[in-house]
């Protein structure tokens, strides 16, 4: 009857739990990072100032607050290194996501149309790489892509190339690695939407004169857009911040933002700038998230 009776204590806790999680494991750490990004680097332990000492009294805290500045963010927009890193990350993520969609959609579509008893098996094939450590799989790719690796041996044996191709330390190698690693994250949400699709809607489309191709573009594809959005976002966001794959497979000519961040942290020991890079990255990722949320709302909840 009243909302209160539904929200008995356990239920109320369950409703609050996700927010608690957000506060504990996202908001609080983010607060730390944000604070460091506003600090200055120092040769000290930890390597930045000011430090807040809550026992030193009110005046000390105010003095520390006054030392915070946006200098690190000014550096980010004034130095080309950061801007090009951001841009490269963005370009790599967009390109990878498009390739993933082009490969993942047909695979997911095929899976959804398999006979029921084969679908679980196909799903396992998609997931099975996760049973091996991610790092080991990337090292395996180094092995495959190196000068006398498997790929070149196959290409030579098939007479597709005359001399071994240089794969390692190129963007091609990086894209191969990224697409390979993220394909399950694209396939699974696409499969989930495609398999739930009501087959009678395709029959209705055919009944109303749509050829199979028209039925796909007019019914199947628009109805799978939530899956496309989920898959694209699930790939795009982590790829933007990807560090391991470009570091191991791509050349050192240009860096993605994850690599720049690593450099600032571990090579330069400049925690404040590294934190600023991280904060800026997060802020840049908010617009696509909001866009996705709006799309999701429009396709799912047409009801107003």
């Amino acid at each position, binding site marked *: 009857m009243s909302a209160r009776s539904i929200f008995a204590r356990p239920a109320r806790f369950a409703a609050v739990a996700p927010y608690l999680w957000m506060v504990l494991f996202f908001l609080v750490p983010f607060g730390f990072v944000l604070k460091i990004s506003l600090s200055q680097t120092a040769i000290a332990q930890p390597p930045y100032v000011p430090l807040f000492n809550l026992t030193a009294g009110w005046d000390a805290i105010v003095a520390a607050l006054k030392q915070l500045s946006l200098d690190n963010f000014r550096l980010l927009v004034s130095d080309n290194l950061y801007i090009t890193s951001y841009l490269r990350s963005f370009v790599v993520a967009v390109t990878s996501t498009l390739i993933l969609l082009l490969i993942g959609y047909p695979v997911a579509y095929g899976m959804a149309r398999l006979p029921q008893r084969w679908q679980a098996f196909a799903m396992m094939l998609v997931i099975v790489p996760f049973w091996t450590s991610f790092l080991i799989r990337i090292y395996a790719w180094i092995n495959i892509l190196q000068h006398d690796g498997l790929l070149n041996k196959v290409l030579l044996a098939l007479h597709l190339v005359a001399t071994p191709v240089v794969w390692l330390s190129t963007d091609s190698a990086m894209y191969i690695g990224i697409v390979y690693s993220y394909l399950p994250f694209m396939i699974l949400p696409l499969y989930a939407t495609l398999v739930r699709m009501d087959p009678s809607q395709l029959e209705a489309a055919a009944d109303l004169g*749509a050829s199979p191709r028209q039925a796909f573009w*007019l*019914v199947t594809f628009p*109805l799978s857009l939530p899956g496309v959005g989920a898959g694209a976002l699930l790939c795009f966001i982590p790829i933007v911040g990807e560090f391991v794959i470009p570091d191991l497979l791509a050349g050192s000519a240009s860096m993605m933002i994850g690599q720049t961040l690593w450099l600032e942290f571990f090579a330069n020991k400049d925690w404040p700038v590294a934190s600023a890079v991280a904060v800026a990255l997060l802020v840049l990722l908010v617009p696509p998230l909001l866009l996705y949320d709006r799309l999701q709302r429009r396709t799912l909840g047409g009801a107003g």
Partner: protein
Amino acid sequence: MTEESPDIDAPAALAGSAPPVDASADLPLLRIEGVGKKFGAFRAVDRLSLDIREGEFFALLGPSGCGKTTLLRMLAGFETPDEGRILLGGRDIAPMPPHQRPVNMMFQNYALFPHLSVRDNIAFGLRRAGMARAAIDIRVAEMVALVKLDGLEKRKPDQLSGGQKQRVALARALARRPQVLLLDEPLAALDKKLRESTQLELMALQRRLGMTFIIVTHDQEEAMTMANRIGVMDAGRLEQVATPRNLYEAPHSRWVAEFIGDVNLFDGEIASRDPHRLIVSTRDGGTIVVAEPRQPVGKTAVSIAIRPEKVKLSRRGPALDAIDSHAINRLEGVVTDVSYLGGLTVYQVKLDSGAMVRSSMANTVRIDIDAYSAGQRVVVWFTPDDCVVLEQ
């Protein structure tokens, strides 16, 4: 089994409710010829033949799994027959893919496109037909008015009630003006009141458009209400094709008699034949006099079917000479159970022979001081003309 059932005796009295469709039309609009479909070893439709005339409202009625939906899906093109032909206006459409057939289907779950508005759902088929935009607008407006959806054109399907969705599905299927409209359990998702009013609307619509409707249903009341003719299916075959009245009053088989409505059945053997009368001695030792059916009965082992409303109860029996002259059947028994259903009361009577008989009587007066009660001894009687003889 599949041929048209002959009109039963006294056609003048019976022709009332469902006017038979003009039988003089030379070639039927739709001819199903020896069509069969197997799923693995299961014979869903078994070499079935059926003619459906233009302008007819035809119902395929049967229990679930009888093959009626498979047959409808073969007409729509979603299943390909393993054998036989489907002639629509003389042309075999069996090998044709669904998007090229001049038939449309209204789906049981409506199968509306959730991402399209009501207007775009209705226009979907028209756009595929390459109709000009202005003509589409006119046709959509016409359809919206026809199914009374005015003002809802811009809504998405999930903003509609069940009844409104049903109307959109109907408008979408009608928009292309198909030669045959196929309806797969179109009212199953509606509640009882809405279903009854929609039945009447569908009938009026079909009459107004003069279109051929084929409806699949498992609800015999729905089929009897709406259809000119009903094809009763069981195990992939047509058990009987007849008008609703003939189906009820002159079933061809024991199965049809039991499937349509309620029935009392007595198994027995033909003992002797009077002029126009058969004397059947029943398995429980009684004797029932029945009218000689128009089609001669070959076997001697028969079942006598009599509908409960034709079984009368009384405190005293009819005059004895009527029994002696075989004008009436008279049995005696005890009422064991009384079910009051509002318009009707159904009495279970245990006959002295041990057999059970159901009798239903219309409650034509509000206060019935003469109503029978359980335990009461009664006379059960019915006329030979009200009995149907079925070969076992």
